């Protein structure tokens, strides 16, 4: 067979379009999708209908207005809607930069749905959950190796949840030292995730945001101007959404720590750095990883996710409870963490997600993890060189330098030349079975888009994605209307967004839709 594999632009792609009804429109009185088992006759004989034990006002008088639909039609409804969803297995999903859309191994879903985990209750006797605790403890050990931190918790349900934990620890730490009142500022950067700023504000902090310089990086000089006795902490990503590694990161950390603050490393995405550089070397007090990004667990349309929160020994006493302990023979849950911030999520976090991450790490081993990072970085720089050649596209900042795992690009030139926007292009991408995301707000980079190739895609798939971007760029210059009126081969055409911001018209539920729209146009 040939050693070359070709690729093609899928000009004949069309996403499934079923014109599927809303579930409420499928209602047919008398049909049903499921029968709940009645209780045994002996029970009924002893206690009667169950309802008679309740005071009348606690019994629901009118049944909920849920649709009645036969089982097969319910299945068909959701199957059709699933076909109207692209998902990572069908997509070359590198257009959702910052989110590390990589392959989610199927075996891990199978393992997590094992009844030995799926049907495990969190309050069972510890003797009956040793396997689950072993997974959490072992994953903690692996995370320590990847980060250099001393202890991990998997309680945070997501990256934002982990940020909230970091901010809570910062606050508890200063309270413990009697400085909570005076230290009321948290510093972050504009290219760090919005939740770094938002979660800090939730905990009452004044947020100071450092802007980027011409290299796309925050500067030590700007930090010096704002750091001081009011600094509670620093929350920073590196590399930020631009994919440019900040070589002065250790200096940032040192300055904040010298001023008495704590430093939290937002490593939601560590996909380019495993085995390359760690939170420890840069001096951080804390870090976190998103299991649903780097560690191969699926994103589930927006969760369940997982945040692995790591801290140095000095902060261990502030961690959320419980921690998983191991005495060499038995695993246990430790609720006695002296200065704990308490709990931020029920029980022990999304354990089924942690199990998938565990399996992913074990499938790769230390060298495999490093190879994941190296190939993710190689793929990124490969795509970077190709995108730079696309007419109207550019990669702002740090010209001539390599990037780590992703790049924030710009269609600004194309926009000026043709009037076509990133949003137009994103919609046109759907016609080729692909997705393109812009960036977090605010749009510091004009007409932004963010590409993160990860390690999962073959060279040909990367070539295909770039070829589609190239084709759409050509379309923008030659037939801009095609792009501006996209999508043409997707589930639906351009959506009217006016109703979404009008309280008189927004219809967040079926009952509001009926009240605001159907009642007027029967």
């Amino acid at each position, binding site marked *: 067979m040939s050693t070359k594999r070709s690729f093609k632009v899928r000009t004949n792609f069309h996403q499934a379009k079923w014109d599927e009804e809303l579930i409420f429109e499928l209602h047919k009185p008398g049909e049903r999708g499921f029968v709940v088992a009645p209780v045994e006759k002996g029970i009924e004989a002893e206690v009667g209908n169950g309802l008679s*034990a309740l005071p009348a006002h606690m019994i629901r008088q009118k049944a909920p207005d849920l649709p009645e639909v036969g089982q097969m039609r319910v299945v068909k409804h959701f199957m059709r809607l699933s076909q109207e969803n692209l998902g990572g297995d069908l997509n070359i999903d590198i257009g959702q930069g910052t989110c590390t*859309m990589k392959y989610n191994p199927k075996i891990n879903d199978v393992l997590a749905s094992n009844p030995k985990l799926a049907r495990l209750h969190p309050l069972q006797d510890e003797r009956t959950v040793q396997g689950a605790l072993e997974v959490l403890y072992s994953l903690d050990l692996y995370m320590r190796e990847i980060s250099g931190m001393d202890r991990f918790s998997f309680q945070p349900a997501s990256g934002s949840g982990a940020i909230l934990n970091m901010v809570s620890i910062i606050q508890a730490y200063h309270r413990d030292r009697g400085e909570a009142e005076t230290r009321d500022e948290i510093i972050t950067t504009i290219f760090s995730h919005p939740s770094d700023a938002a979660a800090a504000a939730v905990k009452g902090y004044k947020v100071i945001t450092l802007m980027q310089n011409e290299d796309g990086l925050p500067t030590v000089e700007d930090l010096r101007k704002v750091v001081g006795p009011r600094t509670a902490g620093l929350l920073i990503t590196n590399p930020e959404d631009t994919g440019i590694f900040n070589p002065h990161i250790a200096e940032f950390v040192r300055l904040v720590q010298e001023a008495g603050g704590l430093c939290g490393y937002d490593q939601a995405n560590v996909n380019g750095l495993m085995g390359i550089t760690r939170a420890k070397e840069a001096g951080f007090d804390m870090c976190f990883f998103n299991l649903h990004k780097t560690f191969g667990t699926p994103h589930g349309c927006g969760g369940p996710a997982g945040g692995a929160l790591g801290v140095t020994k000095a902060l261990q006493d502030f961690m959320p409870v419980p921690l998983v302990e191991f005495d060499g023979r038995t695993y246990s849950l430790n609720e006695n963490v002296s200065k704990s911030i308490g709990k931020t999520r029920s029980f022990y976090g999304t354990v*089924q997600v942690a199990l998938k991450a565990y399996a992913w790490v074990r499938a790769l081993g230390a060298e495999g993890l490093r190879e994941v990072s190296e190939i993710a970085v190689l793929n990124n720089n490969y795509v970077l060189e190709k995108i730079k050649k696309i007419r109207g596209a550019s990669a702002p900042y740090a010209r001539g330098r390599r990037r780590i795992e992703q790049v924030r690009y710009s269609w600004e030139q194309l926009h000026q030349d043709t009037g076509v926007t990133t949003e137009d292009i994103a919609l046109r991408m759907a016609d080729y079975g692909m997705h393109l995301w812009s960036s977090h707000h605010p749009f510091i980079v004009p007409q932004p888009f963010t590409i993160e190739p990860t390690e999962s895609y073959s060279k040909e798939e990367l070539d295909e994605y770039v070829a589609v971007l190239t084709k759409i760029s050509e379309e923008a210059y030659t037939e801009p209307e095609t792009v501006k009126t996209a999508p043409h081969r997707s589930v639906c055409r351009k959506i009217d967004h006016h109703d979404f911001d009008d309280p008189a018209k927004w219809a967040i539920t079926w009952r509001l839709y009926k009240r605001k729209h159907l009642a007027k146009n029967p």
Partner: protein
Amino acid sequence: MTERRAHPYIPNSVPRVKAEMLAEIGARDVDELYGDIPESLRFRGKMDIPGPIASESLLKKHVEGILAKNTSCEEATSFLGAGCYNHYVPVICDEINRRSEFITAYAGEPYEDFGRFQVLWEYESLMAELLDMDICNVPTYDWFQAASTSLRMSGRYTGRGKALLAANISPDRLKAIRNYCQPVLMIETVAFDPKTGLMELADLQAKLSSDVAAVYFENPGYLGFLETQGQRIADLAHAAGALLVVGADPNSLGVLTPPSQYGADLVCGDIQTLGNHMSFGGGMGGFIATRDEEKLVMEYPSRLFGISTTEVPGEYGFGDVAYDRTSFAHREKGKEFIGTAAALHGITACVYLALMGPVGMQELGVHLLQKAQYLAKKLSAIKGVRAPGLESPFYKEFVVDFNGTGRTVAEINGALLEHRIFGGKDLSKDFPVLGQSALYCVTELVSQEEIDRFVTVLNDIVGGK
């Protein structure tokens, strides 16, 4: 030629491909790509992580070997509840939530991920019917987060800085609420009657003032009982200008009066009980519901998906309602924060409610009432055991008072475990006022036969054999 083979997850690690790509970008080696990282920050050691298990069959064997050390509720008779419940999960729920298109998708727009928008909008809609409220959000993490955010929303809505919470809510939930609401809301608890579990209205009245943003209780309460004074609590809260926030188990609402009908302004809770597996506590998902009042809606930090039209007549479109509220739009100036939470659990709950319909939800509620009442009746026949331990009606779980047996709950549960029975959650530490009591829960997965066997075993244990 034996060329090194790539790891199945890393196609471009084929040496020839790697070399080709490096050549194409003009790099000597991969290390050159890391040129921006100062040597002082480079990790030159070796991560101490065991070697790869690249073969799927071996990986499966390895992980299953670890999981084999667990004993699941499938292999035992479980009476555990306390916030996570062993309900039956219809196979169609798993069939849909394992669909590759849903499980591997993330943040696409309706133009490629139309399905998730429609399903989550239907989820919001079905929940709204179940709760008899206008609006429900795209799921947040869990009940902890939903309750915490509901209280913060109340604080912003009223411009006040205190919340009054029933003292017998879940202690862990209280911990989370305290942490999350600090520093904008002072959290104060309202006493309960240890005989009934009900809120002490005199204490509530004494603590209500013009700085109280919200009153919060749970129904069914964490201790299983029904708070029957909902309307009176609502009236007292409203008279003081506060909002009423009620935490509820949505799977009870086929039979129980929804909190909106006794005055709740916000209702929150967990959707684990709607078709999501327990997964050692991982299967949670939070909901927040309100009426359709602009001022209140604008306080949600969550995604709210709405339905709209497209350029094509008769075609539905979906999108974010009032996106400007969120931290995605305005970072620290948005409402709290938003990120990845528990969407797939919302999709699952949507499938569950579509399958169950109004009749299924009612059948489920009746089933659980009957079974819990049966269990209580059988337990109360044992000498020294009082069930329910609180003199109030209950739904699917209730307090069992073992004080009269002279045995601790820990001893009893230890003995039950030898019979593969998971006794109820020990309450002695969290609620010392109840002494040696445990929280027992039944679901449709515990049969009469299992209950009867359990009662016999327990009788032996507390009778000293």
